[in-house]
């Protein structure tokens, strides 16, 4: 693809992605300063902010400890069944927080409030730390650790002094993902009745029909997440320093013997897996065994599953189409323009699903009415929400196909289109497939934007589940939850295997 075409396509993609944010800004400006002050300078907003931030802090800390600890045990020690534990630590990625919350709330009486929310969110999001840290531990150059050992450092001291500093970007990146995730989570806090911003925004819109109030509350959420995003971009820049020098084959890492702590360590990981996966699994299967409660519900389940799959697939396709030019531009063109395009596409990362959903409702009602109440608007919301995931995947994939290969292929007499088909595309495909799987998985699990934007009468697995838990019909909700987890587990497994965290296979 030629540079001007690529730049134009990337520009269009960015505009589409920024539609919700732009619209939010316009509406908030229209509301005026007085209204904003009246709405935001209240004790309730202060309480909401305090709860949201405290929840994010507690969950992030817990996820970091749990994620880094299990990554280290799985990759660097003689833990029994290390590969199994690696899989178990990655799988919670397939359990949406609202399903975990639903499982706990229907299993334990009075399971509501701040600490239950913190527990559920931690169990669901620690893979966000585990996966990048395990991958970084796997990638780290054993030669550096060998040098430290040869200079007389004990294995533990080597880990602290040499390995841990190299992990800092991975840990920081993962922790910030968790923090962003907690701030934007809606399902778990709503089910467990914890008053955070997302819940307040949704309630203001859905129950109070207070549109402007909901939008103004959203801006605080956007501000909080933007601060986190800036932090993330700072660590990302720092991470560039820890590159491994030189090429060539790598030797495996030496595993540290745990000695007498071997089985206690395994037991700890077992407990974490039991809480994160066992409780939902057990609860769902018990509810399922009780039978599907109403006649005709099998058709409903099938319809909802079909809707989930088609809407998520459409979301993944649109997102990847928008991400391709941006990712290629970022990887191929250095310079301020590419950097600006990349930053802009990441901006939507700071917008929780509730906010994106809400601003697209406004956009649909006031600007693009033909789109309102159609699947297209929902697809657009998915694209705006998950574009950053896709852009990251595409630009990482583009690194697999450096421009020098294109130059050589053209110098050998092949037309640009033929070069793209025979060289660029085959090298990009695995990375793009992984990006698509990630977006697809995330679309399947997405709840708040789906609730706000789905056409009336269209239900997905997530919304059906939501509807039933809302009226405490736990048995009716179970089949949707089970199906959703099972369908999500497939792309989750694929992603975990690709990250290299599950072991040396497929990590060339």
């Amino acid at each position: 693809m030629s540079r001007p075409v690529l730049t134009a396509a990337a520009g269009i993609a960015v505009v589409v992605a920024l539609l919700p944010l732009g619209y939010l800004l316009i509406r908030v400006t229209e509301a005026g300063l007085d209204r904003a002050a009246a709405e935001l300078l209240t004790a309730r907003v202060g309480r909401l902010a305090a709860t949201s931030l405290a929840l994010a802090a507690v969950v992030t800390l817990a996820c970091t400890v749990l994620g880094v600890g299990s990554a280290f045990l799985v990759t660097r020690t003689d833990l029994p069944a290390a590969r199994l534990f690696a899989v178990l630590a990655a799988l919670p990625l397939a359990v949406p927080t609202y399903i975990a919350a639903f499982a706990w709330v229907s299993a334990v009486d009075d399971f509501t409030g701040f600490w239950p929310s913190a527990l559920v969110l931690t169990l669901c999001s620690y893979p966000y730390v585990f996966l990048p840290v395990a991958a970084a531990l796997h990638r780290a150059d054993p030669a550096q650790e060998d040098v430290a050992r040869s200079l007389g450092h004990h294995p533990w001291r080597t880990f602290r002094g040499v390995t841990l500093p190299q992990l800092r970007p991975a840990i920081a990146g993962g922790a910030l993902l968790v923090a962003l995730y907690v701030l934007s989570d809606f399902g778990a806090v709503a089910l467990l009745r914890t008053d955070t911003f997302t819940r307040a925004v949704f309630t203001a819109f859905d129950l109070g029909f207070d549109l402007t109030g909901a939008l103004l509350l959203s801006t605080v959420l956007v501000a909080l997440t933007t601060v986190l995003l800036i932090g993330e971009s700072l660590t990302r820049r720092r991470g560039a320093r820890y590159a491994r020098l030189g090429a060539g084959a790598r030797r495996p890492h030496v595993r540290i013997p745990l000695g007498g702590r071997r089985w206690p360590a395994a037991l700890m990981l077992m407990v974490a897996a039991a809480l994160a996966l066992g409780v939902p699994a057990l609860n769902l299967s018990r509810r399922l065994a009780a039978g599907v409660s109403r006649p005709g519900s099998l058709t409903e389940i099938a319809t909802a599953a079909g809707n989930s799959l088609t809407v998520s697939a459409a979301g993944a396709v649109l997102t990847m189409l928008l991400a391709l030019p941006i990712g290629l531009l970022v990887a191929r063109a250095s310079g301020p323009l590419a950097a600006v395009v990349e930053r802009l596409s990441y901006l939507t990362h700071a917008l929780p699903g509730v906010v994106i959903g809400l601003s697209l409702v406004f956009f649909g009602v006031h600007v693009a009415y033909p789109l309102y109440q159609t699947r297209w608007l929902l697809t657009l919301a998915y694209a705006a929400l998950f574009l950053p995931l896709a852009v990251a995947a595409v630009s990482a994939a583009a690194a697999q196909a450096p421009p020098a290969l294109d130059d050589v292929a053209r110098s050998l007499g092949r037309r640009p289109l033929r070069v793209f088909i025979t060289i660029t595309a085959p090298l990009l495909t695995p990375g793009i497939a992984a990006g698509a799987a990630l977006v697809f998985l995330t679309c399947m699990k997405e709840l708040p934007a789906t609730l706000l934007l789905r056409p009336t009468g269209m239900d997905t697995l997530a919304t059906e589940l939501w509807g039933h838990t809302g009226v405490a019909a736990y048995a009716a909700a179970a089949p949707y939850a089970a199906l959703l987890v099972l369908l999500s587990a497939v792309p989750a497994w694929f992603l975990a295997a690709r990250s290299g965290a599950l072991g040396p296979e497929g990590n060339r």
Partner: protein
Amino acid sequence: MTALTVTAACKTYGAVPVLTDVGLSVAAGSLTAVLGPSGCGKTTLLRCVAGLERLDAGQIRVADSVVEGPGTHVPAHRRRVALVPQEGALFPHLSVADNVGYGLDRAQRRSGRIEEVLVLVGLEGYQRRMPHQLSGGQQQRVALARALAPRPRLVLLDEPFSALDAGLRASLRQDVRQALRRDGATAVLVTHDQAEALSLADHVVVMRAGRVVQDGPPTEVYATPTDHWVARFVGDAVLLTGVVRAGHAHTAIGAAPVHADADGEVTVLLRPEQVRITPIGTPTAGQVTGRVLRHDFHGHDTLTVVRLADGTEVQSRRLNDGPVPATGDAVQVSVRGPVRTWPAGPQPRDAGDPAPSRRAGAGHA
């Protein structure tokens, strides 16, 4: 016949001129080296010849057809100019045979050309290997075979040896030259390594800051460089002031015949192998003498630095076929000509110090 002609080529990146009035011609079947320090524009020149970048002004002809000029830009894939980039850039998802056959059509692939070029680069039997199963040197050989396979009008080599270690580099250079000769290919090699350029090429084009400063056979570039900078860039150089009278240059270390014979004050270029040192007991009047300051031992020869009585330092290279004077010993110094001279006066300002791009053991050619 001329395989490549570049005329008055100019290119700027923004306000920075990269190529200024560059001209060169490459004879069919020859290997031409474009030699210059990093940032001199040589890789840009190569990319313009390949059609990967466009010139602002000037003309490029490959064989007899204009591929680049005012109103003309033949795209890279129609030029039949094959590229061998720095790191080889093998297609990682294709086997050796598929890499080499990439530029061939189906009939050519079955004609045995793939096997033929693999034999040429010494990799027969490697058809099924994947690029990651090859060493760095083998990857470069495959990259060369891939470029040769479609019998291009021109093969462009962009610093193809720089990523390899010294021993491998020397042997691969000779193999590459042999493969190019046997296949009758015309090649342009871009390099910053003057030992590589001098030992490999039939013709050397020296570039500095986007301009061609000298163009000639390796021996000519080495013996009669156009200016001080080129003199230092292509080898070890001793520069002394002197006076030319009656075909001889008179310097602090004696007289020597000169290439050109304009009388007057001059700067004299001595290559270390033109400076002879002889151990003596005690200095006597009329002899030019100095003391040995240090040795750089290279195995087959030694570079000796001598400080003269007036403080001038000169270098002398001699084969290690006899006793070597010890550091601090007094030696007699003499010169063997002919020598290269320039009229005394200001020289073109050095565009960057050529010294850092020199390699150990370089300049033995």
